[in-house]
């Protein structure tokens, strides 16, 4: 009797046209409140001359902020640096993560310990990482220059050298993020059918061929998703860069978010800062759209593609 009642309720729920809305409702409400409304406010600010000291006052500026930004060499340089930083981060973290995951997927003594240690950089707080890295790159007392000895850069400068500052920041970023990609790819590797691997070995396929034909098709979607996540996270990364260089020297590590912060909180130009934020958002949306278009095409083309 009870069982038939339960079944009836379940049927009623599953059959209800409101079910999808009820399920998506809380998440949609959350996004609307904490993402949608601030985004609208940012859009509104981006077309205004608003000062940090008088955030409530609104003076309509039209597209002036955007026009000024795209005529400002500092902003254009920050766009280039952001693109370089993001591309390097994605290539570094996904490449290194893939290599580490393939290594960790093999059987060797002490593998559980190695897998546990791998996650340590990802678990470390970014602020602590930035502070420690700054000391490691210190010109006078840093361990990196001590280790490099005569091969250290002139005056031991890393974070103050226009040619090395971004390299140093990228090294720290990739070191901190690659464990995450490694762990996710390692999880995906567990889905690679063992019988297919064995069949490939019996057929005489080499290491590269086995990876390309057996492993890659299984993990490709995961790697693609990781690349997307790394892209968006890299566009947004602030604390590490700000703490290590504040965008210097001479703007060589001045990414979009650093530029946004400087305009908003150092120069008090909230309107322009919001405009930088909108450009960053457009950049992220563009990358996301490209990802979905490519994914869809690959899915339509089938597994052989």
């Amino acid at each position: 009797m009870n069982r038939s009642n339960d079944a009836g309720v379940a049927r009623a729920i599953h059959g209800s046209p409101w079910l999808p809305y009820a399920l998506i409702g809380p998440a949609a409400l959350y996004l609307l409140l904490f993402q949608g409304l601030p985004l609208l406010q940012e859009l509104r600010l981006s077309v205004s001359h608003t000062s940090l000291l008088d955030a409530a006052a609104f003076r309509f500026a039209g597209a002036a902020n955007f026009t000024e930004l795209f005529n400002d060499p500092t902003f254009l340089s920050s766009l280039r640096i952001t693109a370089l930083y993001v591309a390097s981060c994605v290539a570094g973290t996904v490449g290194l993560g893939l290599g580490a995951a393939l290594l960790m997927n093999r059987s060797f003594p002490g593998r559980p310990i190695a897998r546990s240690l791998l996650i340590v950089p990802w678990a470390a707080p970014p602020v602590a990482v930035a502070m420690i890295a700054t000391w490691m790159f210190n010109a006078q007392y840093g361990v990196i220059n001590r280790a490099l000895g005569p091969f250290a850069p002139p005056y031991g400068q890393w974070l103050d050298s226009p040619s090395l500052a971004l390299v140093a920041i990228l090294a720290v970023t990739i070191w901190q993020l690659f464990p995450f990609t490694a762990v996710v790819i390692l999880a995906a590797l567990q889905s690679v059918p063992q019988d297919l691997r064995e069949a490939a070995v019996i057929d005489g396929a080499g290491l590269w061929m086995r990876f390309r034909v057996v492993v890659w098709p299984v993990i490709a979607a995961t790697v693609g998703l990781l690349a997307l996540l790394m892209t968006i996270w890299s566009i947004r990364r602030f604390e590490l860069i700000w703490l290590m260089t504040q965008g210097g020297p001479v703007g060589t590590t001045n990414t979009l978010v650093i530029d946004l912060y400087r305009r908003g909180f150092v120069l008090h130009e909230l309107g322009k800062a919001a405009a930088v934020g909108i450009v960053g958002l457009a950049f992220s949306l563009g990358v996301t759209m490209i990802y979905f278009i490519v994914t869809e095409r690959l899915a339509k083309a089938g597994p052989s593609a």
Partner: protein
Amino acid sequence: MINRRVLGLGGSAFVATLQGARQVRAQAAPKTITIAASMLGEPLRGPKLNAILEEFNASQKDFVVKPVTVPFSSFGTAMFTQMGAGGGPDIIAFDQPNIYAAVAANRLLSLDEAVKGITLLPGNNSLKIKGVQYGVALDIGNYALIYNPELVKKIPTTFAELMAEAKAQTANGNFGYAFRHTRAEEAGMWYDLSNFVYGYGGNWSKDGTPTINADATLAGVRAYKEIYDAGVIPRGADAATYRRMFASGKIAMMVDNGGVPTVLKGTNPNTPIGVALAPFPTKNIGQVMAALAVNANSKAPDAAMAFMRWFLGKGPQTTVQGFLGGSTVATPVPRTKEELDASPYIKVFDSVSDVALPFMPPGLEVQTPQIRGIVVEQVLLALQGQVELKAALDEAQKRVLALPR
């Protein structure tokens, strides 16, 4: 059975008693205000400034002041964000340029009534905007040459001597000189750069017209670059690091402000410290100032003004100057014999009070952050050899002229 009328009367009496008690409590409760200063969080001076606040609280029955500690690095941003949203502490110890920015946005109250009848040191005039006093100094630090007398035997009196001594002192991990030279320390680099410019008789502007590429300004910046190029500074070291190096005997000289000897002694009480006039062609030098101002958003401006007036009294001013070391306060407080015996170098910092200049371009004070950013960026380009110094300053001049007024 209880009579309804008796019950009603009893209830009314109870309510009246409660209301009365609330009124008495409201009358008796002192007004609470807050004061924010990065100094409050400093290990050496913070507890002493907190003790002053306690002294005020003990002396008052109508007002209570509570400290708000915000680190120096994020102080201006934190205050402006709160003030822009209609809040913030009642009293704020701002850097000078922030006072101008806050006044331009109508975020500060006039202190004219609070300072009436009080003699202020001339340095406070830089906090008077369009005839209105918007701030009073908490800490005025003049700059001078701080050197290690155990290393430097002949005190340099010219730039050539400074350079020669700095070169002689640079060896085996020791450096002859130190200053800020990175974007990460933009404000500090601006101070250090400005000292050279002022010392060479230049300035960043005159009566609101930028003079960034003027001859005297260029000469000062060129001297700064000469020291950088000579390899006599610990490149990449921030102020906290090179001051620690100074306290460990690894830096011979630096031009720094009157509060720094106290910091050095705090790091190492045995740090040998000598102070002389900066060896530049003129006696002109910079002056850094933290100034107290009253937030226009304050809900208790009367309490804030009462605190300001009390703070400018002889007792608190003498106490504060006593723990500031080589700095001075808002009002003239004579140095005591004990003070001068313990720190004879104080006299040197005091001796430049009449020629010390604030780190703000005259007539363009509100735009200090923008001008600072442009100048520092261009000078860094020149330091890195990416552009010739004169061309860098020409570019900075052009960009500053293009700033919206």
